[in-house]
C-alpha cells in the first residue's frame, strides 16, 4: 500500500529559497499511527536524494500530521532547479510504499 492510499493529502512547498518542507496530512488517528509506524525517515531521505541525517522529522499527533524538512539540493532558481516552488516533490512521498500491517 502506498502513502497516498492511507492519508488525506501530502503537500510540499519551499520554506524560503533554501528549504523544502513536506506535510503529510493523515486525516485520522489510525492513518497517523500507520504513517508513524510504517514510513521511515530513511525512506523519505532516499526518495528526496538526501541522507537520513539531513531530514528533519516532526510527528505531530495533535494535527495527525507528519512533517519533513530538508535543505533544497540546489538553491531555488539555480540553473539546475527543476521545480521553483518544490511543490511536486509531494508526489515522491505519496508514492512511497508502506510495509504490510502486522
Amino acid at each position, binding site marked *: 500500500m502506498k502513502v497516498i492510499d492511507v492519508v488525506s493529502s501530502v503537500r510540499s512547498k519551499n520554506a524560503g529559497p533554501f528549504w523544502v518542507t513536506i506535510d503529510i*496530512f493523515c486525516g485520522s488517528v489510525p492513518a497517523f499511527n500507520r504513517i508513524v509506524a510504517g514510513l521511515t525517515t530513511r525512506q523519505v531521505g532516499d526518495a528526496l536524494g538526501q541522507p537520513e541525517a539531513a531530514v*528533519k522529522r516532526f510527528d505531530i499527533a*495533535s494535527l495527525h500530521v507528519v*512533517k519533513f524538512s530538508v535543505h533544497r539540493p540546489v*538553491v531555488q532558481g539555480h540553473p539546475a532547479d527543476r521545480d521553483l516552488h518544490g511543490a511536486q516533490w509531494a508526489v515522491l512521498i505519496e508514492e512511497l510504499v508502506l510495509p504490510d500491517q502486522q
Partner: protein
Amino acid sequence: MNKIIRVLVPSGVLGLGFDPKALADAVALKPDVICIDGGSTDSGPNSLGTSTSKYSRAVCLREWRQLMRARAQLDVPLIIGSAGTCGTDDMVDWMFDITREIAAGEERQGNRPLKVARLYTEQDNTIVACAFAQQRIKPLEPQLPLDADTIDSCEHIVALAGAEQIQAALATGADIIIAGRTTDTAVVSALPLMRRCHAGAAWHAAKIAECGALCSTHPTSGVIIVDIDQSGFTIYPTAAGARCTPQSVSAHMLYENTDPFILYEPGGHLDVRHTHYEAQGDAQVRVTGSQWVPTSPYTLKLEGARLVGYQTILLALLRHPHYVTHAKAWVNRLTGFLKREISVSLELPEDRYEIEFRLIGVDATLGKLETRSAEGVETGVLVIVTASSQAEADEIGKLINPFLLHYPLTDEEPLPTFAFPYSPAQTSRGPLFGFCLNHVLQLDDPMSAVRLEVTTL
C-alpha cells in the same frame, strides 16, 4: 481592560485578488488596521535581481484602490509590506507612485491630507560588506559561503524589517505605510504589539493571517479577520460559507515553515508548542498559549541576488514513436555532437557554458529522483543554455537549432524532422539571477538599517 485590536488581512498578497463582498463585510466590523503582504521570495530570485514586481501594475493598482477606499472609510492605517514582490527601494517608489496616482483620482474626504510613510529596507552593498568585516553578518542554516566579493556582486540586498520598523512608521501618524522587504508577519503584528496585546498572540495571529483566508475552508476568498487581545486571539473569515476550524488554523503554522512549532523573527521567536486551539461558534477559532521569546542581539535577515549568467532556451517536440522510445539515447548522442560543434565553430571551451536537456514527459520535473517510467504519446525537449553573456547564449542556441530539428538517432537512418512549436525555436531568456545570502545582520539599533520618509499627498 482587555482591549482588542482587530486586524483585517484582505488577501495573502496584493495582486492575487479577494472577494469584494467579504472585504465590505470585514470593513463593516471596523478593524483597527488593514494589512497586506506585497511579496516574498516564493517565485525565485528574478524579482530581487531585476528589482521588479512579478504582479501586473494594473492589477495591483485596482486592488490597492479598493483597499485605500476601505481605509478612507474607516480612517485607520493601511500597511503593505514587501512592496512590489522583492521590497527594493525601487519597488517602494513604484508602490508610492501607484498610491499617488490613486489619491489624485479620489475625492478627498473633508479635504484631509493623506499621510504616506515609506519604509526603505534595501541595503547598500558597501555597508553590508563593512558589517561582514565587523563580523555582524551571521549565517543561517544551510550555510552559504560568503565573502566580500559575493556581497559586492549582489544586484540588490534587502533586509527583512520586523515589527519595530513598522511601528516607527506607524508612530509618524501615517495613514498609509509602504514598506520595503519585511517579514510576512511583521506588518500584521506591529500595531497589536504597539497597543500592548499579548506578544505571543500577536505574532502567532500574524503568522496564521499572513496568507489571508488560506487558513480557512475557503482559501481563495482572501479576507480574514484576527482579534488580538491580552491573552490570545480569535480568527475568522468573512466570506459567505467560509469557516476557520482548529485544524485549518493549526495546520497553517506548518505552511512554508521548516519547524511547525517555532518561527524566527527579528528580535525573537514564536513558540507554539503549548498552544491551544478551540472552535468558537461555527466559523471562529480561539487560540491561546502561544509564547514570544525575545532574543539578543537584534538581527534582521538579509536577502541578496546576483547575476549568475544568461540563458537561451529551445523547445522541440518528438512525436515519432521511434524517437519517443529512444529520447534519452538521442539526447546523449546529440549532446556529444553539439559539444564538438561548439568547440570547433564557436571556439568555446566546455566550462564556459552549460547545455541541459529536459525531457518533458520523461523526468523533466524530478530528474534523477523520478521513480516512474511509462512511454507517452510524445516527448517535449526543453533545451536550456546558460552562458556568461546573452550573445554567447544566443550563438549557442542558434548553433543548436538546426540539429535539434534534424539530428538522427543513428547514421543509418533517414534524417528526421521534429516539431518546432514556433519560430524561431530559440528564445533569449535574458539575465539569470541567483540567491546568494542566507544570513542575518546584527544591529544595536533596529532603525539603523532602514530609512523612513513621510509625504503628505
